[in-house]
């Protein structure tokens, strides 16, 4: 039996990838869910995107408010993961292009801790609390 000739040469070892932008977003969504004991759900949905870009949106879903949805941030990135284009869906900051994980996490932190997002979370938690009291 003749062995097949290797025309591929020596294959490169898998490149060490930086943290996936989508995974970071999902982790932050789960963190919000955990911090609010499930009153607010941090949910990440993937979206169809042309030009070979992947896109995801992090949004806050409120089960006790008939699944009300507040969209927080949208990300788009290519096969190389970075740079990531971050769109602030609350309209409070300009879209940003983040070249590194650190830039990306900083941008997300700026959006999540903005006065707008804080006031939305506060308002939603108040609504949830009121709904809960009415139901009791």
């Amino acid at each position, binding site marked *: 039996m003749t062995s097949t000739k290797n025309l591929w040469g020596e294959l490169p070892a898998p490149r060490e990838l930086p943290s996936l932008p989508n995974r970071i977003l999902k982790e932050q969504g789960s963190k919000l869910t955990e911090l609010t004991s499930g009153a607010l759900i941090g949910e990440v949905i993937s*979206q169809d995107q042309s030009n070979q870009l992947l896109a995801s949106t992090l949004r806050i879903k409120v089960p006790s*408010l*008939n*699944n*009300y*949805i*507040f*969209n927080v941030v*949208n990300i788009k990135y290519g096969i190389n993961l970075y740079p990531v284009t971050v*769109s*602030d*869906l*609350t*309209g*409070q900051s300009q879209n940003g292009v983040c070249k590194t994980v650190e830039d990306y996490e900083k941008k997300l932190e700026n959006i999540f801790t903005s006065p*707008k997002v804080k*006031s*939305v979370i506060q*308002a*939603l938690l108040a609504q949830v609390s009121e709904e809960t009291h009415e139901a009791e």
Partner: protein
Amino acid sequence: MTKILFWNVNKKQLSQVASQICQEYDIDILVLAESLNSDVSIQKHLADKTQTTYIAPFNELSNRNIKFFFRYPTESIQPATDNYGISIREIKSPLAESILVAAVHLSSKLYADDNEQTAQTRQIVQSIEEAEENAGHSRTVVIGDFNMNPFEKGLVDADAFHGVMSQLTARKGTRNVRSTQRKFFYNPMWGRMGDLSEGPPGTYYYQASKNFELFWNTFDQVLLRPGLLNAFRKENLKVITEIGTNRFLTSDRLNKDEFSDHLPIMIELEIELVA
């Protein structure tokens, strides 16, 4: 009757004038875009003019300075979705079927090209369809400043608003495009473009030194799902050009020095939501 007024006030102090329109036309739902006035000051002007109370729940959730004011009880209003450029509220009624009111303020052509505007529109339509699925019905009215004309891709494409000019077409409900059922909107603003239409030639005037220039644009529009068409009569759609002694037009364009660079629009639907 349910009457909805939309006005992009272009960051001007126009809440008194908007309140005057609410009084004159007996408006139930006021929607403002680019309003810098506080909710409280607008509510005060509304109360002074109309002698009724308008509530402003959930405005802290919306963006792009979209504000809703309702002449309904608090328990009738439920927030459905807020996304960049769109806020959707459900009006629940003990007397009639609930409706979804979506207010939009899409990105300006100054900051977004056609492709960007169309991409934004697709996301917005996804939000609408999700809200409809969640609400369990498609009785949706979309009103606002689309920053696109009725004939542009974001308004016409099947995977965007899918807004058509004919009620007969819209009443078919959906259309199959490459194996996907796409819901229709009816866009009556197709009939409000140019000199031969009722009212002014458009709702927004812009002139630049470009080869292609429309001058008048119909950026402010209202779209209806087929489920609301029986509640609509064409005479119940108005582009408002004056109120009292306030004239929103000069001899050939908008009087944007005194008022907004957009005209207010109003629609009346023949449904009684709240007694």
